[in-house]
């Protein structure tokens, strides 16, 4: 019997079924109208005559496992009914898409292999929404992606695109920790080459603080004092820490109008709008530039370094725990204020230093 006959008889009499086999070998039968909603299955049935019985079950692509198949069939079962309003369909879609990220990925892949374009669009958009606004580490975490780019490669474009202060801070903390680990290993091995690797990573960090490109030559140009390498390391650590401390100020600076205005904007941006993000991002760059220029005469001793390290840990812990509360505080403060540009002069940097001392 041909499929056409079946389609004619169907409404009154028997329901016809199509047999599907997933990659794991399990076979199931599905109502015809539901299964035919998928172009790939439709193609198999019409062009090749498959699926009419258990022995001739349609083999589904490997990316479709039974769980995904049942999800997809739910989707098809709902949408193949012609009489539904757009509003109904949309609300079904919104509820349908609520699942954890892993299943969403699998579903996207499965829908793509079955060429079910509406579902691919729906899931792709959902995945895009998940990815938006996240840092690379977060994306790797969510999707279990390997961390196989060199640090230079990772930091390269991020220098100039990170808008969320938390992301930037995390990047810096991350790099700092890595550097610490390497230094510890270095102390064991006394290898000169490792130091160079360290420098490069911190170079990248600081080049972005300076607003230069990622070239180490650029760094050398901007730094005036180049003593022995160790001192340079310490200087750079300090500069990085100073920059981190500056950030430290900002969530704490509720009594400082300009700071809080910036953070308020940032937080607001983090919630939804992205347009003023970049305004703020670049103002932060401004701050860093000035901060760094005032940095040149820095002398570091281990005690101060310890203090700085502790402050960083403190900040990280606080950021981790208090962020939601702080967000509320800051939002109520930093409402509709224009970010203030810090002028480039010695006073600016000194003032910054004074603040750090007060801490």
């Amino acid at each position, binding site marked *: 019997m041909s499929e056409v006959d079946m389609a004619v008889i169907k409404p009154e009499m028997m329901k016809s079924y199509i047999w599907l086999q997933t990659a794991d070998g399990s076979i199931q039968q599905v109502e015809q109208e539901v299964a035919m909603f998928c172009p790939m299955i439709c193609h198999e049935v019409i062009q090749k005559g498959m699926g009419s019985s258990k022995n001739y079950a349609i083999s589904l692509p490997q990316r479709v*496992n039974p769980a995904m198949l049942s999800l997809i069939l739910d989707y098809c079962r709902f949408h193949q009914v012609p009489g539904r309003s757009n509003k109904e369909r949309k609300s079904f879609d919104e509820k349908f898409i609520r699942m954890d990220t892993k299943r969403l990925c699998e579903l*996207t892949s499965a829908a793509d292999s079955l060429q079910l374009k509406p579902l691919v669009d729906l899931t792709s958009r959902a995945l895009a929404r998940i990815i938006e606004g996240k840092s690379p580490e977060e994306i790797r*975490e969510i999707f279990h*992606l390997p961390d196989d780019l060199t640090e230079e*490669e990772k930091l390269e474009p*991020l220098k100039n*695109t990170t808008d969320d202060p938390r992301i930037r801070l995390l990047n810096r903390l991350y790099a700092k920790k890595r550097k610490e680990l390497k230094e510890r290993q270095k102390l064991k091995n006394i290898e000169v080459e490792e130091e160079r690797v360290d420098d490069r990573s911190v170079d990248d960090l600081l080049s972005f603080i300076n607003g230069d490109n990622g070239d180490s030559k650029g760094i050398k140009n901007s730094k005036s004092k180049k003593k022995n390498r160790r001192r340079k390391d310490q200087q750079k650590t300090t500069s990085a820490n100073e920059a981190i401390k500056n950030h430290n100020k900002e969530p704490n600076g509720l009594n400082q109008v300009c700071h809080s205005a910036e953070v308020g904007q940032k937080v607001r941006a983090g919630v939804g709008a992205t347009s003023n993000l970049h305004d703020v991002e670049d103002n932060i760059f401004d701050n860093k530039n000035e901060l760094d220029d005032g940095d040149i005469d820095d002398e570091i001793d281990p005690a101060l370094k310890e203090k700085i390290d502790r402050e960083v840990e403190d900040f990280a812990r606080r950021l981790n725990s208090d962020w939601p509360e702080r967000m509320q505080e800051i939002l109520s403060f930093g409402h509709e204020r224009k970010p203030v540009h810090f002028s480039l002069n010695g006073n600016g940097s000194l003032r910054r230093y004074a603040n750090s001392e007060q801490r």
Partner: protein
Amino acid sequence: MIGEAKVGNEDLNLCFEKLMMVAAGNSEGVKMNSVGITEWKDIPVELLLRIVSLLDDQTAIVASSVCSGWRDAICLGLTQLCLSWCRKNMNNLVLSLAPKFTRLQTLILRQENPQLEDNAVESISKFCHDLQDLDLSKSFKLSDRSLYALARGCPNLKKLNISGCTSFSDEALAYLTNFCRKLKILNLCGCVKAATDHALQAIGRNCNMLQSLNLGWCDNVGDLGVMSLAYGCHDLRCLDLCGCVRITDDSVIALANECLHLRSLGLYYCRNITDRAMYSLAHSRVKNKGSMWESSMKGRYEDDGLKSLNISQCTALTPSAVQALCDTFPALHTCSGRHSLVMSGCLNLTSVHCACAVQAHRTFNTIFHTAH
């Protein structure tokens, strides 16, 4: 070295977990399912690119530094990018992205405040040879070096916007046209130094596929340039000569005779334009209607011929000439719905109406609003 880094990674990841902001809702480590895909990297590249195309530009850039698989996919697949959201670091961003995104075809670098420098454009022309659409508007800091670099590196350019780049010279622009012969859309609005008769002659010689040219406020443009343009670029459809005060009727007559596909013409502030120009436009249409009959048979009658004309402040024109023009080109409208014949500041032209405006006037007997 890499092994040590990986070990360091694990250690770092563990202590980094504590600092992480976002709980993704997944437990740590990679889970293996028995069947089906387990990792994102099993998703085909096209699907990943489709998802990336739904992201905004900034996120797409971030996504390219997630892992090597994503980086390769995005670097091979990304063809359009806009960096206009970047307020302060656009130059550095371009320098770091150009070597990666070598398949770019469209690149929008329009700036709010000028940031772009020559080294960024040189980097683009060194790596992005497929570039077809480039927007460098308002890049005040760019010098001729950029144009020379683009000439060498981006020969496939079809659309180029350098409006507001006041430092470019006409020599460099002429040099560019010698290499970028596929140019179809060129925006030189405000490029006073670059848009001279010399450059226009070069354009007329080299860029024969040109369809749209904006010479707004380029007051060095004269008849010689526009006539060379007309003789060279027969496919010209849109030409904006707003503020090109030296233009006279000869330019318009040349355009009327040579550029038979002209659909949009801007002559705002071209005070030297007289009725001669208007009649020549009308005449060329009538003269060529016979030869263009076959092509217009497919489309509507309105499809060819002037669709939009701006003769504001051309105070030398008289109503009879302009009315003749309006009658010849049915696509020119003075009615409020489809206003395309703009005559601001021409107080003696208030009696000029398009056909539908006249009908409306007759039928409804309302006071007709003059074009303003």
